[in-house]
């Protein structure tokens, strides 16, 4: 699959009191995992949402040589998937949110095969976060935009998620942009870090 190219991207999300951020440029090669880091409120999530075209933005984004504007918005979001920190669930059971019952990646995240029959109202926030990742991966996106995907997980589950995402990225040749606050995690999963500072400046550094 393809590289993700971002040029001059700036979120134009309506009504948000976020200080003007620098225009964002980045090239993410397939299989590359890059972490993004910065104080809360600095606009990390807004940037991911802008890439996924969930908020209005200025600038251009390409997947390989296909421009974002050249495809339908839902098609783009299917291929460039944004995973918010807090997942939303709208059906009664876990299984209803999954397009098929291929539970391979659910097993890798530590779930039993009966997880699909669980009721949403009974699952914990940590379980929700892992299930949301599985729900995203099962749709085979080509780029992953992960917003603190291990924020509610313990050490062991965090490592499971890191392993699963790294494996997915390698197997599918899929670039990953991963928001993290955890220094050790950043060093484990990535060689490059994008730092967004409180004043809106953006710096790319090697880890």
């Amino acid at each position, binding site marked *: 699959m393809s590289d993700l190219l971002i040029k001059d991207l700036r979120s134009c999300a*309506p009504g948000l009191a976020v200080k003007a951020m620098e225009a964002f440029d980045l090239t993410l090669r397939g299989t590359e995992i890059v972490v993004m880091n910065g104080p809360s409120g600095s606009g990390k999530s807004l940037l991911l949402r802008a890439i996924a*075209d969930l908020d209005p933005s200025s600038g251009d984004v390409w997947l390989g040589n296909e421009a974002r504007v050249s495809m339908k918005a*839902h098609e783009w979001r299917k291929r460039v998937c944004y995973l918010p920190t807090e997942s939303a669930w709208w059906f009664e059971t876990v299984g209803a949110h999954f397009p098929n019952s291929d539970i391979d990646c659910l097993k890798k995240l530590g779930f039993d095969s009966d997880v699909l029959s669980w009721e949403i109202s009974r699952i914990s926030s940590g379980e929700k976060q892992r299930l949301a990742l599985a729900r995203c991966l099962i749709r085979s996106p080509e780029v992953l935009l992960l917003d603190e995907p291990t924020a509610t997980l313990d050490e062991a589950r965090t490592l499971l998620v890191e392993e699963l995402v790294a494996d997915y990225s390698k197997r599918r040749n899929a670039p990953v942009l991963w928001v993290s606050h955890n220094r050790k995690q950043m060093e484990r999963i990535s060689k490059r870090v994008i730092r967004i500072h409180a004043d809106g400046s953006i710096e790319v550094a090697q880890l």
Partner: protein
Amino acid sequence: MSVISLSPVDLAIAASLVLFIALLQWRMRLGNTQSLLIAGMRTVVQLMLLGLVLKYVFAASNLLWIAMMATVMLLAAGREVMVRQKRRFIGSWGFLLGTSSMFVSAFSVTLLALLVIVQPEPWYLPQYSIPLLGMLLGNTLNGITLGLDNLTRNAWEKSAIIDGRLALGETWTNAISDIRRDSIRVGMIPIINAMSVAGLVSLPGMMTGQILAGTPPMEAVKYQILIMFLIAAGTGMGTITAIVIGCRRLFDDRERLRLDRLR
């Protein structure tokens, strides 16, 4: 049989009942006293004015006058739809969405009833056209208000769900489908209820009026059935139009949920 004329004292007795409830609300600190009194006064003033105007419109039976009156009724209905919503579309959309939905539904159904079904001579005979349009506007207003209020409120409260579905690559129609279905259902509830209990629990207002005025019950019944069906069709058409257009307006050309279009 002629109608027993009501004296001012008769109306005053009924008014004192409303005043009593207002007093009770005020003493029990239930709030809402003001809106009850204002609504009561509006009833008196608006109906009195209508009585005066109708007297001339009926006498003249002039198409232009009737059209003007219909326009005033439509604009007033459009304003009511707008102000009764907690979260409404900003800008001219707030007014135009409800108004145009009522225009296409209530007006087309009224025209159909006049030209094809009842066929008075001339077709716009105000004794028929004005009350018909009034009943249709009043009921579609209800359906559209309930439906739109449900739509905008749910879109606001469940924005995380809509957004989550969009993020997974669903189309905007899919992401809002549950809310849209529910909003249309809510808009249709009053007329479905009214048709279900008609004659069994309630004697519908128009039929009651005709019977009081001396129409044979079976004639009044036939008219009431006609009106019920017209209202059901008008409400359905109006609610579906408003909800479908409203849903579209909640998303932009890149299928993003745009809550900034609501206030």
